[in-house]
């Protein structure tokens, strides 16, 4: 089963994304900030990451730049899911960027395409 890491400081979003992805056949793990996410990524392997941008402590962009410096982990595809305006410009190397509130069908289509 493909495993997805959900990184978001909002517990409602984390819960919603986890239910949505679990219901569609994906295993999930959640992190509420960049540091927690980095610990999880170091300890486990993930097939995909959904990443919020504006989080307390380090922003999602910093998490991504750290991830990109890891020779192994840098290939994990990242989907940006954020409420910030212009978030499509935040991480040019992200596989997709969605603005909250997002369409769940659109997210699932992106996830399916990426994990095919």
């Amino acid at each position, binding site marked *: 089963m493909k495993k997805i890491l959900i990184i978001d400081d909002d517990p409602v979003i984390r819960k919603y994304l986890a239910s949505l992805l679990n219901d569609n056949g994906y295993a999930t793990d959640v992190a509420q900030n960049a540091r927690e996410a980095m610990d999880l990524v170091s300890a486990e392997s993930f097939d995909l990451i959904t990443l919020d*941008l504006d989080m307390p402590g*380090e*922003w*999602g*962009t*910093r998490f*991504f*730049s750290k991830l*990109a*410096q890891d020779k192994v982990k840098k290939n994990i595809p990242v989907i940006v899911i954020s409420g*910030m*305006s*212009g*978030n499509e*410009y*935040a*991480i*040019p190397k992200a596989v997709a960027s969605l603005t909250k509130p997002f369409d769940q069908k659109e997210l699932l289509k992106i996830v399916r395409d990426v994990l095919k």
Partner: protein
Amino acid sequence: MFKKILFATSTTNACDPAARVAFNISTLYKAWLKIFHVIEKKDPGEALADVDEKSILEVNEIIKTYYAEHLSKPGNHEIKTILGDPCGRILEEIQRNKPDLLVMGVSAGGEKSLGNDIETAGSTFQTVVKASQCPVLIVNRAAASFWGAISNVVFATDFSKTSDQAFDFACRLAKKTGCELHIFHAQNTSLTPESQVFDQNAIEARIREKLRFSRKKYGSKMEGIENYAIEVWEGTAYIEIVKYARENYADLIIMAQDSQNPGSQTDELGSTVKQVILRAGCPVLCINKPKRP
């Protein structure tokens, strides 16, 4: 590092990326932030008295509404609106209140104005950058506004005297924040834009020479900075600086601005600085040479 921040804004969406960064720095460093708006006098003969206190208060309310989301977060903010010539008023404000940092956007043209036409690239930021006596942080692209912290800084040097001022600032910043400091120089591959490109052996010899020079010039001054890199790449300076910053996930580019005519409103900003400001995927901090006593 930053206690007093001045955010000069036209209160339009052209300044939104700069607003995001200004409020973010203010929150991160618990700095006092002054949101500064100048109502431009269209007619040079227009009297200051034409805009009364009531109108200023109304404009302040508009600014409060425009930045409501940012202002709703905790922080020390103040809004100031005045009438006049934006460049002159911003520079006066800097002189009077001596902020540690001026944050501004590029009020016209934005990403589309990558040419050399001063009118399309926004003349206010160019004049202010040239004359400001405090560091100026310019945020042009939306891509430059996703700014979480200062952890990776590129100091782009041309080895000029003004670059030394910018280097001192970059070192202070690196020591205060513990960030990684990249000292970067782009070596031109030809003497002038029209001349032929040097052969590769000559280019690589120049890179080695500049790298040795850079290590000698800056290496000994890096005490207290644990993470640093010194790099020289060949190519067109602004392209290489933007590229290097992107590939190294820089949060900030620091550059020197060495204008011959700092007060001039017609002379363009140095083309490398201007192009880096317009194209960078992170904020660009410009340091001017100190004013002659």
